[in-house]
């Protein structure tokens, strides 16, 4: 969950997606500015942190990069539990990875924190000639599910920082309202009940 300090926000962020979609590469590009042509397959999960300045506040991201292999799926709830933000990554050159991303979206909608800021990232957008998932299709899906969508490339750094900035920008707004909608927990009902009790 995101927590506030004096204009300093600390937020847990988790990356989910199919294996080889480029989750680790995205994080590495964002945190260290590096890109490895052949990023080693993540075993389990990796932890990074990075601080961003957004307008008058700073956001410290605690990033959990998870493994994409199906085998580790059952461990994922441990990572997205309590996360303030999630990036679901797919590979634009693979329709399977897009389908997998949809499964993640469903799972988060069902199990995740309802106020979570969720982003859908179509990675490897530098490989335009091998594209299998059209931007329109992904954008339509994202809009339908209230996700915010970007196509990124960890290799060329296109949109990588923008993605994280946009999440940081959206975080405070996604905080739960102080008063829940609908019912008011005011003192009034008590007083009124007393009044009505003596009237009757």
């Amino acid at each position, binding site marked *: 969950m995101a927590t506030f300090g004096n204009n300093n926000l600390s937020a847990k962020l988790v990356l989910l997606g*199919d*294996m*080889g979609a480029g989750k680790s590469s995205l994080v590495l590009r964002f945190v260290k500015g590096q890109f490895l*042509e*052949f*990023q*080693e*397959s*993540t*075993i*389990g*999960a*990796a*932890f*990074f*942190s990075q601080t961003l300045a957004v307008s008058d506040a700073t956001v410290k991201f*605690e990033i959990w990069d998870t*493994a994409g*292999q*199906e*085998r*580790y*799926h*059952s*461990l994922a*709830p*441990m990572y997205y*539990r309590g996360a303030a933000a999630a990036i679901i990554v797919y590979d634009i050159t693979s329709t*399977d990875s897009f389908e*997998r991303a949809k499964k993640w979206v469903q799972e988060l909608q*069902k*199990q995740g924190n*309802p106020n979570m800021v969720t982003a859908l990232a179509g990675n490897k957008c530098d490989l335009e000639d091998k594209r299998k998932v059209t931007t329109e299709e992904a954008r339509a899906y994202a809009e339908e599910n209230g996700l915010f969508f970007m196509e990124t490339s960890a290799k060329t750094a296109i949109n990588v920082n923008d993605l994280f900035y946009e999440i940081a920008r959206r975080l405070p707004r996604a905080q*739960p309202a102080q008063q*829940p*909608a*609908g*019912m*008011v*927990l*005011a*003192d*009034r*009902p*008590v007083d*009124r*009940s*007393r*009044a*009505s*009790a003596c*009237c*009757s």
Partner: protein
Amino acid sequence: MASSSHLTVEKEGGGEQEEEEDETLEEIEGFDDFTLASSWERFISEIEAVCRLWLVDGPKNLMEKSAEHVGSRKYLYKVKCELKHGIKLYCMEYYFEASRNGKAAHWHDDLHDLQLSFGVADFLVIAPLSASGVVLDAPESSKLLSAIAIALSNCGSNWPAFVPVHDPSRKAYIGIQNMGTIFTRRFDGDRIGSQVPIRLMHLEGLYELFVSKFALYSVDFSTSCFKVHFTMKLTYRTPPYDYDDEIESEEHEIKDPGRATDGLNLIKTQWDDDCPWTEWYSAEDPVKGFELIAVWSSRMFEGSLEMAELENASSFDAEKWLIYPIVSPNMLDDSLGKFVGFTSQLHLLISALDASFEAQFLEDFLSAENPGSDNSKSSTAIPPPTVLDRVLKELFHDGIQCSDHVELGNKYSRSIKGAPLDSLFAQFCLHSLWFGSCNIRAIAFLWIEFVREVRWCWEELQPLPRMSVDSNIDLSTCLIHQKLQMLAICIRKKNLFHHQNCTENKDRNPTDSKVDFQVDLHKEPMDDKSDSSLRSDWQHDPKQTGISLIKDAKNAMPSANLQQVDQVRRGSAGVVGSMTLLNSFQEMHAPYTQDAPIMTEDMHEERLHAVEAFGDAFSFSGQLERDILSSDMSAFKAANPGAVFEDFIRWHSPRDWEDDEMEDKSRDDMSWPPHGKLSQRMSEHGNSWRQIWNDSPALPVSEQKPLLDPIREGEKVLHYLETLRPHQLLEQMVCTAFRASADTLNQTAYGDYKHMKTKLRQLYLTLASTLKPLQAKHWPNKAELIGDLKQLCLVFEHIEKLVILAASVHRKLLKAPRLSEAIFSDYFNFYLPKMGTCLASMCYDKEFDTKQQVMVHERDAVANLFPPPTANQSWRKVLSMGNLLNGHEPILREIIFSVYDRVSSGHYGSNIPMTTTEEIETHRMYICGTSNDLRVALSVTSWD
């Protein structure tokens, strides 16, 4: 009129009096006004002055100034003033309607009693300020009435004026109205409170009563042309529940003393037998009955025989049916202890939470030294052992089969950190709500016994009841539930382990056939389970990778046979599709793998904290997954002797195996060795996957060190349960009890009431956000939080009551869903201001009486609310009025008779221009009667 001479004098002097209202002033000036000679005349002038003021102001200004609303009536307002005559004080009230145009319909709901009785709109009432509030002697009343009449005609007003007479129970009035220069209307109303003559109980007699009035007054009319207008309103009330039923249910109550808790002995009938909350308590039916109003609109009658016919006519012939529920006053009374339901118990639970901070351990609450642990006090009493035994039996032994519960709670329910409704802990919480008086000592007592029972399950390897067989832990639930889930899994694993040992024993002693049989029975499903969980792991994209497990058990048989042939292969779960090993052309076998270790949220937190502390300097974060990977590799090696790393990757991480060419793919299945290579990232030098592969020994799952040690983890769970701090227990209980109570209410069948659905959804949101601070490790302001929780109880009470009402209305009008929803919606809107969502202030001294019109097709459903009386009932009741509905007499019959006459100018001076065609109501009679009282109000217009 006797006062006519005064009247003219008054008229002359009227102008002066307007300016000089103060009597004392006059005296000082010494002016002797002879028109004010008597006190009676002064009284008249006083009345006149007040009336003039009211006339000048008009309704609009009066409303702004001092007029008050009359009861619940929407349009009616009144102003009043006090007057003195002699030694007597009088109170004059002017009732007027704001913004209603023209004459109201006959049976308008909003009518004041006098309006209804006499067919007037605005009116004056003058009554003595005495204990009885009526004028007791006849001369005084007529004097009073004349005084008003004079005053009113002086100001040229034609308000009707009324004076209450006789004793108050008769509700008798006399009245007079000046109607222009020609007509005067006189009013007279009275009531018989007992011994109504039989003749007047029937329509025929009442009709004759009315006719006799004008036949007497206006002899001019020939009797043949009476055209009497008639309209009638019948009110029926649903019969009370049969007395015999009540006795039965009370006996039932006594037979089952365990269920009965404080305040529940008042239940009359178990109307809510199949409602979801009856498992815990029985609610008072908030709908006491219905009142049905059948209205016959205006008709013309010419003889008493027609009236007699009408008395036998079916109520279904009435033009209009209106209905409204009689709602129990308890709905509106939310003083503590009045309503027994989830809310009252939750309230107690919150008090227990408050008290839970007093001690370190739950046992402290039970120890004798604890001050204030006086067992005699009901607030700290612990129920007797028999009750405890029953509760534990219900928790652990009854209805255990529901372990594979469907997720009943909606997604809103999940946002409350509790436990699913059917789970062991949620049931524990609900039971403890009703365990004794839900005080901290009773809860501590029950918890300790509960944990003891859980430990017994663990030690005896009995599956935990009411826990889902799902092998995952739901992290959105409360920690105790997670721990119990963990324990259930550990018991299952331990059991499996135990049975495996048994199997080995069996192999050694094949003679013991009994054990043999038993073990086989148990082992079979266990294997299936781990098998299927494994398959589900791997079946994600068989199309792409070409991997598919043979799912049919029969197909798996050959592999078991094969196992005997190939002694080296161990721990195989079956062949993987058509895949073959790269080096040996053997079929690839999928190994049995260990389930991923499961963790409760506290274990997680520990791990994440450690990782965050170390940062990403170490590859610590992946340690757990590294262990899993290593275990998988060992198992794969054991199941596939001679397999290489590439084989493992093809099975485990198929996208890291790249086919050379797309066109080769069709041949791929056939040709050997398969084309392809490891992905670049897997083939990098120093790849950690390969390192782990190299380090992993070939070991089937059965010989590996388990990723999750069930015995250790199980003991850890029990340790947690046994050493849980009281406040930690109570915090989780509060959340879970709120959630389980809301879930229970949410299961109620109440049809399709939109308002109710919305409110329930809002309730979940409110619960989730208010209960959230409870999860915090440290409470900055305990008193405030407890206060918030008590407020939450109030919110909960509103919803609980509304749900019960909704269910009650729904089940009573099952066949008229539109009507039942409309009725509920009316009540909901009536109740809404109580919930504090809107700013309008609301006085609840008023009863709910919004009526809903019954559509023609819904009449049958409504008539079913009036079951034909049983022999028992009809024996008791004497029917006397007629107009029966399914054998039930109306509780009230109201009739308005009226005759109209064409006004001819000939009666009075012909100098007054008068349209001869105008019809005026000459006689009007309002009759309101039951079988033992009768009220008659007559208004007569006459020219004199």
